[in-house]
């Protein structure tokens, strides 16, 4: 199944107010293959979150179409397709329902009519993955921001969707736990062949992706492997190592030309 498109977006345009010419998205097209990790980057107001809301059918496109698993997303199909797509929002307070952590994670599964044992296994598994298993009996509203975010992520992991969307879902975590959680996700993504679309400002998270989509003022201005993107677009803030290379160059030091990853730069300095 690898290589077949799980999400394809064709010529997508959207305005929040059709009386103005303010397009939140205009003529955006791209494809994400099964098992891929794609990251969408762009400044505030570039249309990233709008894209996520369109893909899960929370708002309807003005023009263009979205295919999930080769099936077009519309009023009739959206209920079925939503079972295949899971989304984690930026602020986890916006999506808590259960009175305990485990109830909250189980909520999505209850809607799928799963049998009790299967549900229990999946809930516990998901909570262990995000390291919140010991908190399973706690009230979600009593948790800290970062803990809440982990629970929200577990809720989506338990659903085992074909496509997972993270809309700035890691901003409340400290860098260390973020890095650890991303590593865990990268592992389960490979193991379960999950497809991930992450919307992010974090350069480290972006460099983890197989492909980057760059949005600017509602337009898809570039798409490709992270390295190539950072090299081609000097106005996108690159990862730290590349910034350092540019700074050294600016100070008249002879550094190698072209984009360098941290490994390459450290190896060059320690040569």
């Amino acid at each position, binding site marked *: 199944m690898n290589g077949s498109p799980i999400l394809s977006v064709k010529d997508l345009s959207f305005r929040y107010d059709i009386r103005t010419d303010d397009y939140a998205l205009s003529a955006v097209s791209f494809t994400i293959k099964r098992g891929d990790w794609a990251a969408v980057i762009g400044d505030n107001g570039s249309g990233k979150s709008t894209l996520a809301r369109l893909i899960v059918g929370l708002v309807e496109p003005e023009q263009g179409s979205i295919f999930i698993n080769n099936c077009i997303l519309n009023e009739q199909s959206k209920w079925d397709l939503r079972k295949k797509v899971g989304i984690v929002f930026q602020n986890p307070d916006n999506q808590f329902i259960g009175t305990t952590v485990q109830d909250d994670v189980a909520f999505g599964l209850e809607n799928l009519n799963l049998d009790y044992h299967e549900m229990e296994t999946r809930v516990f598994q998901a909570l262990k993955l995000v390291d919140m298993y010991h908190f399973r009996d706690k009230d979600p509203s009593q948790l800290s921001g970062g803990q809440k975010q982990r629970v929200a992520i577990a809720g989506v992991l338990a659903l085992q969707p074909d496509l997972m969307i993270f809309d700035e879902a890691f901003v409340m975590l400290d*860098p260390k736990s973020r890095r650890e959680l991303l590593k865990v996700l990268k592992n389960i993504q490979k193991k379960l062949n999950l497809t991930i679309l992450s919307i992010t*400002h974090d*350069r480290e998270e972006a460099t983890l992706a197989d492909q980057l989509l760059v949005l600017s003022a509602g337009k898809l201005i570039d798409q490709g492997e992270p390295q190539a993107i950072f090299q081609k677009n000097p106005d996108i803030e690159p990862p730290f190592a590349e910034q350092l290379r540019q700074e050294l160059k600016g100070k008249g030091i002879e550094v190698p030309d072209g984009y360098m990853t941290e490994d390459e730069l450290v190896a060059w300095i320690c040569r």
Partner: protein
Amino acid sequence: MQVRFEHVRADYQLGPIRTANVINDINVELPTGTFTAIIGHTGAGKSSLLKLINGLLLPTAGEVHVGGLTINANGEKKILNQVRKRVGMVFQFPEAQLFAETVEQDIAFGPINFGFTQEQTKKAVRDSLDKVGLSVDLLKRSPFSLSGGQQRRVAIAGIMATNPDVLVLDEPGAGLDPEGRKKILSMLKCWHNEHKATTLLVTHDMDDVATYADDVLVLDHGRVASYQSVRQFFGDESRLNELAIDMPEPLRVQRRIEQEKGIKLSQVSLTRSELAANLIKEQLV
């Protein structure tokens, strides 16, 4: 205005059940005019510590002193009111607390409630709007028609308009793009310097700590694990490991180079330009 914690303990009570002490015997004094970063892992008690400063959470034991005012377990209304006029609190995602019909009304809400005259309020609204870098054209707009980054600025302007002596910030940059984040934090730092305020910043980003703060206070399970200057704190490698605290990016890269090359640079690099300068000085590039 000085902020001092004296043997403070606090927890959250939910019906008859008490959680274990979220804040467990905190004893610390933040001098007037300092900019302190509060760090620690999720659930270490950072947000709870902030809430104690303006009485949103009352100590179960001990006292919190804000200037000459004392908050204790009784939580006297009169004192809390006075404290809240002196302490400006910017919560996580402050744009969630916007409510008024226009930007002007929203920013004016604090000053009016604190008894500013009409003239004073008007001036405070305009000044703070200018401070956060928004144009006066927005005054008559609905705050909900603005972008996320602009909404956050309006919410922060509302706090600044009350002219607090203590500024308490809970992740003010979360969810903004790197550019917007830098702008908000530099703006807050400028305000801090101009007003000689005492500022507390909760953040997870060690680069923000290195760039903006003078001192670092590390919380661990509701206790103060460390309180020292930023440079001293990040210079102590073994302590950082012990507390499982990240390094700022420049320092992390410095340590990596040091390890692979088997040397030690004489200075700790907290920013990118410091690292570049140190590498040049030690003739590594």
